[in-house]
């Protein structure tokens, strides 16, 4: 098994600074959903990771911890992560994207 980045929507959606998205070396990997967290009353939306594209470098963790100072990203084992985003479940809208979550190991 291997590590991928996982973003805590609760923490991210409180500010949604969008920094990590600009620093991930991989394209189309940290995406942004304007509506994420709304069900919990958080209004800014959240970043999320398409884990099938993530190479596990943890650069986003450094950026969120040290530049954004939000500590919203953790590296987690792909089989421990539960439901998460995969490229095949991502849809793009006008100014946002959205992912229907699925289990990356069981499908």
């Amino acid at each position, binding site marked *: 098994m291997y590590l991928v980045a996982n973003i805590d929507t609760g923490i991210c959606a409180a500010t949604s600074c969008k920094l990590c998205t*600009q*620093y991930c070396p*991989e394209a189309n990997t940290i*995406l942004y959903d304007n509506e994420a967290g709304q069900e919990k009353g958080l209004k800014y939306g959240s970043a999320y990771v398409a884990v099938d594209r993530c*190479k596990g470098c*943890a*650069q986003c963790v*450094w950026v969120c911890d040290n530049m954004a100072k939000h500590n919203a990203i953790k590296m987690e084992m792909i089989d421990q992560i539960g439901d998460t985003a995969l490229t095949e479940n991502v849809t793009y809208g006008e100014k946002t*994207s959205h992912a229907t979550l699925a289990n990356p190991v069981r499908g």
Partner: protein
Amino acid sequence: MSLDYVKFTPGFEKFMPKEYRDMVEHGPFGKKISVSQVGTFKEILEEHPMCAGCAMTLFIRLAVVAFPNPEDTITVGTAGCGRLAISQAAVPFVYGNYGDQNGVASGLTRGLRLRFGDQPKDVVVMAGDGGMADIGFAQTLHSWFRKEKFTTIMLDNEVYGNTGGQESGMTNKNQVLKMAPLGKKFEKMDMLGMAKVAGCAYVATVVPNNPRRVESVIKKAVLVAREIGPTYIQAYTSCNIEYAIPTDKVMEDAKTVETDRYKFSEYITDEAKDYLAQLYGYKEYLPKPVAAVEGK
């Protein structure tokens, strides 16, 4: 080359892979996209085999996002790590033999001008420091002296990364590398100075820990190369493998190196300033009102 080449052939849409459909429908073609919007549209760089956490990968990603007109852009590369990613973007990519990239780009740029006349087609070379300052040195310099109108971007990881750690002309003096065990014997080459002497109209150094700045220099370099003359960007894009930088410390390294010896610098000729101000609305290059100049 135009918006037409990213359309579906009628009847084939439903057979295209999801990534392709996303790119046509939600990609940057024909739109004004900025780095601050990444994560909300489909980027045209696809998956590639460059190492996890490589700063060169991040730089290439940002550069591709920053192309002012991706639908009218051709990239040129050569042997070295960068081409593994550059070739995986949805813009035409030409592979020049190792060191030939600026020669190939010269011919390509001239050919495109003959074929398309005034309609700008942007040619952007991205190659490693070895390919550009050592093996391709003569062709790089000649393309500048000959005022070939395209952008040259050095992916400067200060080593031959793709072949396991030989020193290049851009490696710092005394640096020990896997295949330079006694340390490098001469100074890092001053390619920025040479670019200016050879007549580049825009020259900049940049480090990818500042994505908006990467965007800004790429846009200026590509636009200036359309009409005014050759442009050169030298980007510090560390090799975390050969310099043993832990991947979660790559941005920390970029910050340290930027502060220490790779400070942001920008050189632009008056002609290029005037052109950017008049044609593309760059306010910072508009002529200052007389009162401001005289300090009244």
